[in-house]
């Protein structure tokens, strides 16, 4: 069994949707996570609030948020167990974030501490 991280990129939902719509997305997200957890494949995960975000660059340059050039930024991540990248991709396909045009879920294998990676 390998471990993968699903990185969700999307717009700040609070800027484009009503609180009611946010609630619906939240519930869909919980059902999606619950479905993976019910298969005993969930490891951990969290959403990342868009407030209080900073980017630090060389020479102590600190800017507000990662936002700017692109609207979609990292809004959350989840680590999962999966037999293969294909299975991890199947999990990612169910992510409610993908209802939004331009949004994405990046699937990456987590390096094992075996000296190979």
């Amino acid at each position, binding site marked *: 069994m390998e471990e993968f991280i699903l990185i969700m990129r999307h717009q700040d939902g609070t800027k484009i949707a009503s609180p009611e719509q946010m609630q619906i997305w939240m*519930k869909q997200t*919980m*059902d999606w*996570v*619950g*479905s993976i*957890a*019910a*298969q*005993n494949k*969930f490891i951990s995960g969290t959403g990342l609030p868009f407030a209080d975000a900073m980017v630090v660059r060389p020479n102590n340059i600190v800017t507000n948020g990662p936002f700017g050039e692109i609207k979609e930024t990292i809004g959350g991540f989840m680590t999962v167990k999966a037999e293969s990248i294909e299975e991890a991709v199947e999990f990612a396909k169910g992510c409610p974030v993908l209802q939004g045009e331009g949004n994405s879920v990046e699937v990456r294998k987590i390096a094992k501490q075996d000296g190979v990676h």
Partner: protein
Amino acid sequence: MEQQELIPHLFRTEFRKITAVLCKLFGIEHIEIAEDIASETFLSALQSWTYKGLPENPTAWLYAVAKNKARNYITRHKFFIEKIVSHLKYSTPATDDMEIDLSEKNIADSQLQMLFAICHPAISTEAQIGLSLRILCGFGIDEIANAFLANKETINKRLYRAREKLRIEKVPIEFPGDAEINRRLETVLTTLYLLFNEGYYSESQDSVMRNDLCLEAMRLTYLLIENEQTNQPSVNALFSLMCFHASRFKARKNENGEIILYQDQDESLWDHELISKGGYFLHQASQGNKLSKYHIEASIAYWHTIKADTKEKWDNILQLFNQLLQIEYSPIAALNRTYALSKVYGKAVAITEAEKLNLTGNHFYFTLLGELYKNIDNTKAKMNFEKAILLAKTQTDIQTIQKKIEQF
């Protein structure tokens, strides 16, 4: 109360108190001596009371005799005195007037400290439960064997090994320090949770025994609530969960001891006093910011105290199972989540999700699939129930599934 009822009754309530206090006094390595003295005390009571009639205050009589026996033991066993007396917590230099404190406070403290000693991470969970039943609940070997559906010899061996382990590990009988208490409390709660489940899901035909196991688990959990140091939100949440479950005692089995499924239960048999107690302790549990699995399970149990199928109810139950599975996966939670899913989104969605669970060694999995396929594809439904019956291990489960097959 007549004498023939009184002695077993007092045995149940007083044996554990005497044992806990003496054990605390002698140290964990002499746990058997404490048990022996407590047992001998009851033997004396049986002999004396039969001839001389009941004493005015039977409990005080027992305490006085236990104290004497403990003192005699110490004076008679020089070797014991030399080796052990230096460890005695309450001893004065002269052992003759050694104080054996059977006050209410010392009994409660000793029992709690014994609870922490027995529920020590070094001891297997199975042994923790057995020892708890013996030392903290005053169960006889016969009763423990009956509860576990095992023979006496097996139980005796198990308890012997557990006592040995306590001896080797030199587990102290004391409250864990502040830094440790939460971690240690977790082990204690796991044991109490399993002790309760042992009673709730036991296959034993003895319904009094099953209820007693649950009530004892509740009594020990309540001991933790009564103590300021251990009165934590997770303890209140566990107690709340136990209250909600216990409220359905009368409704969940028929007179033949067969399980009555939740949806078929007569809710007028639910104990409403326990339901409101459960609500009270769930509220108490909400103070604090750590959400334990007991909080979630108690909340799920709360929603089950409302019989009517509302959207709100199943929405909440589904979200709670989503959360529970993230904290701790278990096949039964995965299956229950899928059932909740069918209530919220319909059977088709739930079937797709169920088939991802891959719990093909579990008869509940096929029972669930059978339920989901019912009225959608009855051939598949029956096929799944038939698979379930092949995997079911207990007579109760086989009967329950057989009834479902007969519907087709």
